């Protein structure tokens, strides 16, 4: 069995976000970009599956401009066997949207016969949380979202998945092929060492152009405007519990 893993290049989670002066998007110029944190978990899970002998091959797919190759290299350094780079100059934080991304993944899964697809539950730029679910629907295969534990039964071609839901945990069973989206607590991603980074340079990356794939990738959502939210003003530092209670009771009137 082989797995396809999605890795997205996003603004690093620790960078303070600023909107561009034209208010058309978030300013990304010259800022540190990293692999989406949930995708690091996805890669880690796929590699663990291969180490456990559940699957034999891990392929990392990223869609984006030339720089997305760096994110694929990072996945290769972490242990992925090969990469697929679908190139586009569309802004992937707002103009290339989950429906189109899912169509790209669907095409690759069908053509290259992947048995499972592992994605992050959401990317920290557009915060959509949709691609895995849409992908399952498009292919007519099950998707298990917000996974915190994935147990694959190779012989019966099925998986038992523990999902993080609002009231606690939920266990479901899905037939393979299937899509899994990873929640934070699925695993702790490893770091790449120097040796594996050097080795990753020799691993193959297949390159496609998004425009040549024959899918409808036109954005369905038009971004009219991007703004900064109103900043919350810090208030006062109180000196004691008595003062705090007095403020909450008499000033804020919340207790």
């Amino acid at each position, binding site marked *: 069995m082989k797995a396809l893993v999605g890795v997205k290049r996003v603004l690093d989670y620790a960078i303070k976000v600023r909107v561009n002066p034209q208010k058309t998007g978030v300013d990304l110029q010259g800022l540190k970009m990293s692999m989406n944190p949930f995708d690091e978990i996805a890669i880690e899970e796929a590699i663990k599956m291969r180490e456990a002998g559940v699957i034999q091959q891990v392929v990392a797919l990223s869609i984006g401009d030339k720089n997305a190759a760096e994110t694929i290299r990072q996945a290769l350094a972490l242990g992925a066997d090969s990469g697929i780079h679908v190139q586009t100059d569309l802004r992937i934080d707002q103009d290339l949207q989950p429906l189109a991304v899912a169509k790209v993944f669907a095409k690759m899964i069908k053509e290259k016969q992947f048995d499972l697809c592992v994605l992050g539950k959401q990317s920290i*730029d557009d915060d959509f949380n949709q691609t895995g679910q849409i992908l399952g629907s498009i292919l007519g295969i099950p998707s*298990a979202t917000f996974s915190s534990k994935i147990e694959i039964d190779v012989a019966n071609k099925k998986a038992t998945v523990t999902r993080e839901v*609002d009231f606690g945990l939920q266990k479901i069973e899905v037939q393979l092929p299937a899509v899994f989206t990873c929640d934070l607590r699925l695993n702790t991603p490893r770091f790449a060492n120097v040796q594996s980074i050097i080795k990753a340079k020799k691993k193959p990356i297949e390159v496609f152009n998004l425009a040549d794939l024959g899918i409808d990738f036109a954005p369905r959502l038009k971004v009219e405007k991007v703004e900064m939210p109103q900043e919350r003003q810090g208030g*006062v530092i109180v000196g004691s*519990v*008595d003062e705090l209670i007095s403020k909450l009771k008499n000033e804020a009137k919340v207790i």
Partner: protein
Amino acid sequence: MLSMLFKNTTQKVLNRQLLTQVQSQVNNLFQSQPIFRETLQLQFQVDIFVHGGKDSISKQVEEVQKYPGIRSIITSASDDLSNPYGDHVSQTLKKVVESHSYDKVIASTSAFGKDVTPRLGGLLDVQPITDVIQVINNGQQFLRPIYAGNALSTVSSSDKIKILTIRATNFEKIAAGSANTYPVKEVAAQNDNVQGKWLENNVSESEMVELGSAKYVVSGGRGMKNGENFKILYELANVLGKQHCAVGASRAAVDAGFVPNDMQIGQTGKVVAPDLYIAVGISGAIQHLAGMKDSKVIVAINKDPEAAIFKVANYGLVDDLFKVIPELSQKIKALQ
């Protein structure tokens, strides 16, 4: 009154009512309430989709009948829908949407809404719009947070059907009233070719109100040092009234194993906007702020005066939480 409302409009909206778990039925209903007011103002026709097991569906319908402004209730009951796997719902919903020509499908941004609405999007070739915080321009544009709430994006959609999830805390709630008698129409569940199934639920035991609907939230971070120490937060929550106070946590506290992950507040956990949020031993990382910065009043208790949480807190107290929290509980109790 209702017919007047409907006469003024040609738009139809389907507000899916996500009543999936018998035990959390009322909470789910509560979470989805806010959109009613919004849709009433926009003069949409509102139909509610209720699904569940055959044994619980009538009780759920009864619950929905208490709310004003609905045109009709559409039900689907089957064994698969009492504890559904997402595709059971999305496939049934596809049938409902297509046979009624709805142009909007709305759910709340709950784990369930987030799971099911994109599945429906894939089935209908529609790009859903998640986590809407404001409906603008008579339902033509939608405001949603991006980058963990550090920017806001206004989008319009070229899709014929708009599939939305809404962030319930950003909409005003509408109160339940006396029972109405809206027409109820049954639709058969669609579950051909569903290749997944529900196995079991593991519900976190909590006597308190659900985090998303609490008026007061007391939240602990890494500064709590261990899970056992969270008991002082529960004591404070009890004093504030456990019928409207919930205890939450930062990701750091969850990752350290102090408390279960369903207590996590933040970009990757729950988003809350209570009247009062008390952050205890929480530094205030961007991830956490994304989940609570819309609270009406924020109180921060932290011994580090440089903690980022003080930049968003209305009231800050720089002191040892193990001294402050018991004192706060005791003194609030004395007030009552």
